[in-house]
């Protein structure tokens, strides 16, 4: 069967599962007064449509920032504006100022879901297809298998089409950025990534790898001649894009400051809820939230984040090739997730996406996916009433990845990654069969996490520790994430050049 037909079948399957998940409930459905992310998006359409630009990020009589105030960069606001125009055509009640608060109806839900599908088809899916086509190793069947697994990635499907968000836009744009860089179109790549950054500020997690890669490339081309021009062109592209996106806000110096204030709410504290990062886990032993002052917390998180990204970024700067770039993406997002300020559990989605799909050892990848999933997603999705699609999509994804991709991994990947550990452990434990250990660890983690999630959902915790199960899951996940970041950093720093990656060096 021809390639185009196989790829189109993958896309159709991906779209079908997306739309089928959208039948289910969304965040905050039927839960006044605050509802959830769905209502937030609807509210932003209302605000951007009815109010002038300079009021969008400010607390005015018409715009109550406590009720889902805009806290994403301007591109999200423009996107909401466009959706609002369409909404107005279909049913003006959906975006009536004030009167449409908490509006819920079947047709409105269809409209909102359709907007997600539309942007997905426009931005994310073509990026995935091109990525698999150009940057996956192996035969065309392997590429199709990879494409299918990426398109059926539950994280994105459940958050975007269940909980309700527009992650596919920012993730898609970032993927276009990676594509651009991989194909040697630096300007296009920087443009795409800047747009992604202007859509969701969480893409800052990946900005350092992009920066280091491009800077490293320019340095390699010689900072005096071609490299300098390239650097200038890239900087110009980035600045112009920023200027265009922020243009309406540049008239008054107060505006950008207020927007930044909304984007980075340092006033909200080190963490909220149960996140599998360092601060939350540390808080179990020592109550840092109350012990240290706000400034010290900020400084500590900044310092540790920097500490963990610096080695990987410097390595990328010195060796700017695609393989290093991918590893740096994973390391950077993991570092930010573990040590940054005010991190949400959904942020792990970013690190998880790249880790699960960017071609490392399959069982490691899937293990990572497991921890992300069971820890972060489960409580969130159960709260939204999405248990059924969660179970079905996760099982389908796990099964499909194992079935389609496990044999593909046998020969190429494993030996290379694990060669590193072999070097380390050969001295002390020469008889270790590392790949088998990893496989066993994967199955063991799967069972353990399944049991823990089951207990956290269905069993009553003891009265003395009401949060026992979520905290246990959170701490376990944290320990694993810590292990992952150390591992990926080691892989990146001690990496011998892969034969195939030579082709991709630009």
């Amino acid at each position: 069967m021809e390639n185009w037909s196989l790829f189109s079948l993958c896309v159709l399957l991906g779209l079908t599962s997306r739309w089928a998940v959208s039948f289910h409930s969304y965040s905050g459905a039927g839960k006044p007064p605050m509802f959830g992310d769905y209502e937030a998006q609807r509210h932003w359409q209302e605000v951007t449509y009815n109010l002038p630009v300079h009021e969008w990020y400010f607390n005015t009589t018409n715009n109550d920032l406590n009720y889902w105030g805009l806290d994403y960069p301007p591109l999200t606001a423009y996107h909401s504006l466009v959706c609002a125009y369409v909404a107005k055509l279909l049913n003006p009640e959906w975006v009536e100022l004030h009167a449409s608060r908490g509006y819920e109806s079947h047709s409105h839900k269809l409209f909102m879901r359709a907007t997600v599908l539309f942007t997905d088809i426009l931005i994310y899916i073509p990026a995935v297809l091109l990525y698999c086509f150009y940057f996956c190793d192996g035969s065309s069947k392997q590429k199709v298998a990879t494409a299918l697994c990426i398109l059926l990635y539950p994280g994105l499907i459940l958050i975007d089409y269940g909980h309700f968000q527009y992650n596919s836009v920012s993730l898609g744009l970032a993927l276009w950025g990676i594509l651009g860089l991989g194909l040697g179109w630096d300007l296009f790549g920087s443009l795409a990534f800047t747009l992604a950054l202007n859509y969701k500020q969480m893409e800052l997690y990946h900005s350092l790898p992009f920066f280091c890669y491009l800077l490293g490339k320019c340095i390699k081309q010689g900072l005096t001649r071609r490299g300098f021009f390239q650097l200038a062109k890239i900087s110009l592209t980035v600045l112009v894009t920023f200027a265009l996106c922020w243009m309406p806000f540049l008239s008054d110096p107060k505006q950008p400051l207020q927007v930044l204030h909304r984007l980075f709410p340092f006033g909200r504290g080190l963490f909220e809820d149960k996140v599998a990062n360092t601060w939350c886990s540390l808080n179990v032993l020592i109550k840092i939230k109350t012990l240290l002052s706000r400034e010290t917390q900020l400084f500590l998180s900044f310092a540790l984040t920097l500490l963990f990204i610096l080695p990987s970024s410097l390595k990328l700067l010195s060796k700017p090739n695609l393989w290093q770039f991918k590893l740096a993406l994973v390391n950077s997002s993991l570092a930010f997730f573990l040590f940054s300020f005010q991190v949400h559990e959904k942020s792990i989605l970013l690190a998880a996406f790249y880790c699960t799909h960017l071609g490392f050892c399959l069982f490691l990848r899937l293990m990572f996916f497991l921890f992300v999933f069971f820890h972060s997603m489960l409580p969130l999705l159960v709260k939204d009433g999405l248990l059924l699609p969660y179970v079905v999509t996760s099982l389908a994804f796990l099964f499909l990845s194992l079935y389609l991709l496990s044999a593909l991994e046998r020969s190429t990947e494993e030996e290379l990654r694990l060669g590193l550990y072999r070097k380390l452990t050969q001295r002390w434990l020469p008889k270790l069969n590392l790949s088998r250990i990893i496989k066993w660890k994967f199955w063991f983690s799967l069972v353990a996490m399944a049991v823990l999630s089951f207990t956290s959902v269905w069993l009553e915790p003891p009265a003395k520790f009401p949060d026992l199960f979520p905290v246990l899951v959170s701490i376990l996940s944290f320990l694993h994430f810590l292990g992952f970041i150390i591992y990926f950093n080691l892989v990146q720093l001690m990496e011998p050049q892969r034969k195939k990656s030579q082709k991709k060096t630009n």
Partner: protein
Amino acid sequence: TVMAAPVTNDQSWFFALALGVSFLKCLLINAYHSTDFEVHRNWLALTHSLPAAQWYYEATSEWTLDYPPLFAWFEYGLSHIARFFDKEMLVVQNLNYASPATILFQRLSVIVADVVFFYAVKECCKCLREDKGKYLLGKPSFILTVLLLWNFGLIIVDHIHFQYNGFLFGVLLLSIARHFQNRHFEGALLFSILLNLKHIYLYIAPAYGIYLLRCFCFTQSNIYASPESRINKLSIDLPQVLSRLFPFKRGLCHAYWAPNIWALYNIADKAFSILGVKFKLLDINKLPKASMTGGLVQEFQHSVLPSVSPLATLVCTVLSILPALFRIWHRPNGARGFLRCLVICALGSFMFGWHVHEKAILMAILPLSLLAVESREDARIFLILSITGHYSLFPLLFTTQELPIKILLLLLFTIFSLTSLKTLFRSGGALLNPLEATYLLGLIPLELICEFVYPLTVWQKTFPFLPLMLTSIYCALGVTYAFIRLYISLLTCSDSTKKIKTQ
């Protein structure tokens, strides 16, 4: 290439496909379900609460039991599991009861019952004459498995609209597979069981009858009759059951016209009456008031052409399948000839039957899949029949929410069947000639007009039935064409009995 490598054992792909489609079905649990959902809930309730003698008399709900007794027993068995999900669904008075637990249980029961279908498909794959392919995606058994397991019509009708066709077609396909494997007693037994599960399979009973009589002499025909009578001895009042099973009070056509001959007949009648009134040949006052396009299932008259009675449709149906039966009698072509005759009987009854549901097209499409992976001509007919037949099921899901799903799934099935059959029969040029390809492509503008453009026009209020009529007439052309081609292929195929006697 790679596809040879990950297959640790030869049949793991079957399991992967079955699991994959089951996952998809689970995702569709929350989709729209039709009144058939309430129908089955009502049957669960009444089989659970009442003694067997009263099942066919119960009339609290408008959805009286109109399937044969064995299906009633099946519902009775299910009701015992239903108790653990939600006891309230088993109360007959709880009309239109649809709690989340009820929906979950009923949907899961369909998904689990499909295991019968999976087993039957596996058995059918074993019956294929040759199963060699360069790689997995080109193997006839793989293609057949996808065409059956991922059949668009079955997924849409069973898992969205809500019915139990998968399980029933499993029994049918298993019976066919047994005949291919020369295990004729089991095949006959399975068919008798099937008839007692859903009487719509009477459509294809003639094929079974003639085939078994012809090939296995009269002494063995007793075996066919006796399981039937054994199952029927279930202390049930026969006339009452029959009156529930065959409600001839319903009209010639269903509320939505199945794409058969009568749809074309109706439209011709309407056209003649309009023309007649225009050219003053008919008096508009003498024409019957009730409109065919009103959408109700009453009995009514045609204006210009002679009215059609149930007897007339029966005669037409019998006449349409008689040549095929004669052919099988005189020159049986082994199990494949029987299968071809079966498809023709199903299609003939669909074309000329009384009050035919559009879902009945599946009875022709599914068995035809078996023939399609083995012969080029059958693949052509299958493509035309399946694409038009599946498209004609669109009006079953009329909600906006399901619109993307049905389009995506139809595209999925169509692209797969087109490309895989084209690859299978690569030698010998294109599979579809330009006329056929144009006809199939014409479905795209038809869909755009009916579901996107028409609802925005002013005629939506005055003639709401028009898109449905257009759909059924357009599809009727394709189905008729497939019927004729199928007949031609049956009547002109060479006698290869000797070669395929042993499987």
